[in-house]
């Protein structure tokens, strides 16, 4: 019985010393410079956490091996980042009808250091061009402004332009959003 226990713990020590180090080294070596400052753990993170983790790993090392096999042969898929509630423009948000020429004239951005293209909506010009393609011959273009509460409970002010069709309000183009103080 004692021999089995020593063998089990011995294999545990070998596992604990090899597997996590391999993973950590591979993860860290490719992104030097991306992390802007060193991670500074507190005293209990430096001492207590490693002791607890290594103790568990020593006793439950087969789990560590299964986890490593899973990581190797069944890697993570892209992790979904939570998205806010989809915002839609309503009738009460509409401010005034505008022509494309009016909008584009008002949306030229200038910069003394020439760090923006001389096009409507500057760096967002490509997004504007994509939006403009949705505008049909019967549709009208409206400026809008709205206060919106997202799924996290944050209140956001949004403004932009929306396409109004005969069936209702179509796609919109956001030009500004910020959290209400």
């Amino acid at each position, binding site marked *: 019985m004692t021999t089995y226990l020593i063998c089990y713990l011995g294999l545990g020590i070998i596992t604990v010393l090899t597997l996590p180090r391999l993973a950590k080294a591979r993860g860290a070596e490719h992104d030097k410079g991306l992390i802007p400052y060193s991670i*500074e*753990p507190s005293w209990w993170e430096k001492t207590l956490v490693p002791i607890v983790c290594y103790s568990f790993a020593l006793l439950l090392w087969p789990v560590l091996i299964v986890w490593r096999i899973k990581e190797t042969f069944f890697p993570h898929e892209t992790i979904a980042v939570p998205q806010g509630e989809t915002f839609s423009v309503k009738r009460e948000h509409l401010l005034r009808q505008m022509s494309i020429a009016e909008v584009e004239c008002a949306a030229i951005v200038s910069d003394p250091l020439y*760090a923006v293209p001389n096009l409507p909506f500057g760096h*967002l010009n490509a997004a504007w061009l994509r939006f403009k393609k949705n505008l049909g011959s019967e549709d009208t273009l409206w400026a809008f402004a709205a206060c919106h509460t997202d799924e996290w409970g944050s209140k956001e002010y949004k403004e932009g332009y929306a396409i109004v069709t005969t069936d209702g309000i179509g796609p919109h183009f956001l030009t500004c959003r910020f959290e209400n103080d």
Partner: protein
Amino acid sequence: MTAQIGEKLIYQGREVAMCTEPLGDYFALGGESPDFAMNYTALWRGYVGTWEIMENRLYLIGLSGRLNDGTQATLATLFPDYPERLFAHWYSGTLRIPEGKRLEYCHAGYSSIYERDRLLKIEHGVFTHTSVRENGKASYADAPEGYGVGAMTVFPVNAEGKRR
């Protein structure tokens, strides 16, 4: 969620950590976002941007990140015509710069509390005014100074820099 690594801001000649992500607004407003790799739980957005306030305007002057295909992402990756500097005209809001000692560590987002927050108000990329919010005084002398992240998980990547 893990505490997030801040953006860098060059403000009044020194580099500070900023707990605001103006580039996130660019993507939310329809700007094209490359496929950033998320290799650290402390960096879900996959990049760190370097910003500067010059002549009362907010500029993005650098970007460091990695894409899911393993290539390094720079400012030129997102804005090939503006590889050195671009005016953040799309951004309106408040840039938060934590200052002083840490009062309370929260391992989520930018929720940790510091002695002061310097708040820079920006409207359509133009700096309008600054204010300081006092959050309290650290009760012990060796409290950590300056913004930082306590811990994070590093996802293993292969030789090409792709996450495994």
